[in-house]
């Protein structure tokens, strides 16, 4: 088992040692870096193929049908067929489009997603770059996607594209606030922004037990952050055709699709890292645990997509600013209080106090909501 546990780490040490035998050290380091980058990109491409297939199968099951089952066994080669179709399609740039921006956007939208992969801890020691500001890096880089999508919307010179781009900006900037605020609770507990330390801080108990509410807020805002159903307003086909990628075809469209799916997987992976203990887990190798957790969360993403109808834009913004942001702030305050009060008193009091505090917050929300509903009814009766 120790062999399997550190399979990839040992493999990289072995390759490095092999290269260092007949190359100067800096050359061996450089080659290892390039190899890591290549591995991450290949991993991303394989992930998108797998996730695309998985999502279509699972959504199919939710809708009482099989999903793709014609190309290859269980339809697993469907993505290959789709990719061939995408590659051979005509590459159209609209006559009135801003050519530079229009062609730059699909590239720009993919780059941040690949950059985020660099700090994800896939297993013990399996991280390309253990930045000490890991989470800050993720927040900063994932915001770049917003600009790329706005570029796509603006450069297409199409009212639907522009509307979609505008919606992306409004939505992603709004939901970044509760997302970071809820993740702050985790960072408060570990005292570090590095994702590796965050995972190591969960060796005794995953943070979802300490901050279930924080996890919920993070999860909701993360879904909105990657524009997935039920928050897929930027590409709501019944309202604005396909949103910001209305004018894109062929490979450029495939780029948006790629970024979308990888972003969804990354969000699931980050949620698993921050709240479910990342690669921590008994008996199975760490990377297996990581992927189990990430895919479990991804299944919930698909489940929500197969269940919920799309929100209206005012409901979407209202949920972020009127509900999630105040709740995240209260959650952060209470969690900080709990962490300070139970400092040095061991694990059990911390878990107990956190759960009680979370329960109190939920109870407070329910009471306030019931009160507000009664007020509203009184006002309606009076009017």
């Amino acid at each position: 088992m120790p062999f399997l546990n550190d399979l990839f780490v040992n493999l990289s040490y072995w390759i490095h040692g092999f290269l260092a035998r007949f190359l100067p050290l800096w050359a061996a380091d450089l080659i290892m870096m390039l190899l890591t980058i290549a591995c991450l990109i290949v991993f991303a491409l394989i992930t998108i193929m797998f996730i695309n297939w998985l999502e279509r199968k699972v959504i199919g099951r939710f809708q009482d049908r099989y999903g793709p089952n014609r190309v290859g066994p269980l339809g697993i080669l469907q993505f290959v067929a789709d990719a061939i179709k995408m590659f051979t399609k005509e590459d159209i740039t609209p006559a009135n489009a801003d050519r530079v921006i229009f062609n730059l956007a699909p590239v720009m939208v993919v780059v941040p997603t690949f950059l985020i992969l660099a700090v994800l801890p896939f297993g013990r020691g399996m991280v390309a770059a253990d930045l000490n500001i890991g989470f800050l890096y993720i927040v900063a880089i994932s915001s770049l996607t917003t600009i790329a999508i706005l570029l796509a919307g603006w450069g297409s010179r199409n009212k639907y594209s522009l509307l979609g781009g505008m919606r992306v900006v409004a939505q992603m900037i709004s939901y970044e606030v509760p997302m970071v605020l809820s993740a702050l609770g985790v960072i408060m507990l570990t005292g570090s922004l590095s994702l590796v330390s965050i995972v190591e801080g969960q060796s005794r108990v995953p943070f979802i037990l300490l901050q279930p509410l924080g996890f919920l807020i993070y999860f909701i805002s993360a879904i909105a952050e990657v524009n997935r159903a039920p928050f897929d307003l930027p590409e709501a086909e019944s309202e604005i055709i396909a949103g910001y990628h209305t004018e894109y075809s062929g490979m450029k469209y495939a780029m948006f699709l790629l970024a979308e799916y990888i972003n969804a997987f990354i969000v699931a992976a980050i949620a698993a890292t921050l709240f479910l203990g990342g690669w921590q887990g008994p008996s199975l190798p760490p990377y297996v645990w990581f992927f189990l957790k990430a895919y479990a969360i991804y299944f919930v993403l698909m489940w929500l997509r197969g269940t919920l109808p799309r929100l209206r834009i005012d409901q979407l913004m209202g949920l972020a600013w009127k509900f999630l942001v105040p709740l995240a702030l209260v959650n952060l305050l209470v969690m900080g209080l709990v962490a300070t009060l139970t400092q040095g008193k061991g694990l059990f009091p911390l878990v107990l106090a956190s759960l009680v505090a979370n329960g109190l917050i939920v109870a407070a929300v329910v009471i306030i909501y019931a009160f507000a509903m009664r007020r509203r009814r009184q006002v309606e009766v009076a009017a």
Partner: protein
Amino acid sequence: MLGLGILKGLSVTLRHFVETYVSDLKRFPHRYAPQGRARRLRPTERGIFTVQYPEERLEMFPRFRGALMQLTNPETDIPKCTGCGICARFCPVGVIEVVRAEEKRDGQYVPQSYSWDLSACLFCGLCVESCPFGALYHTPEYELSTYGRQKGELIYDLDRLLAWGQKYAPLGTPPVEQEE
């Protein structure tokens, strides 16, 4: 209220998700319906409702207006059609051509040639409605496409129509007449 509706919706979709696997298991080692005969699920039934077309086919209902067939009188073994040409007269697009034979057979007029041009037929069923001898009916056959139209694959002559008649109404009564 407060996300309870969301949880309820999630439980509904999860039930559907699980039930598709249950319906798979019931069919287990086979993936498709036996002999490829699928059945339309009733609204109360659960599980996968799609029909995997080339492997499975739905049974067509008796009044389905598929390809035409010519019936044969089972007692005399000659076509019921007398070549009167009423069907050809009724046809709004003129895809039926009938020529009556010079001599009678067993005291009954018979067609010398009969042809139905599938390429322009709109399956309105007026020919079937108009036939006074009950010789012309629809089959449940719907897979009628061919790889070309130059060699007359889409023109159905009397023999092909009679063969379908033998297949779908061997006793001289088509399923649509047995309904009541």
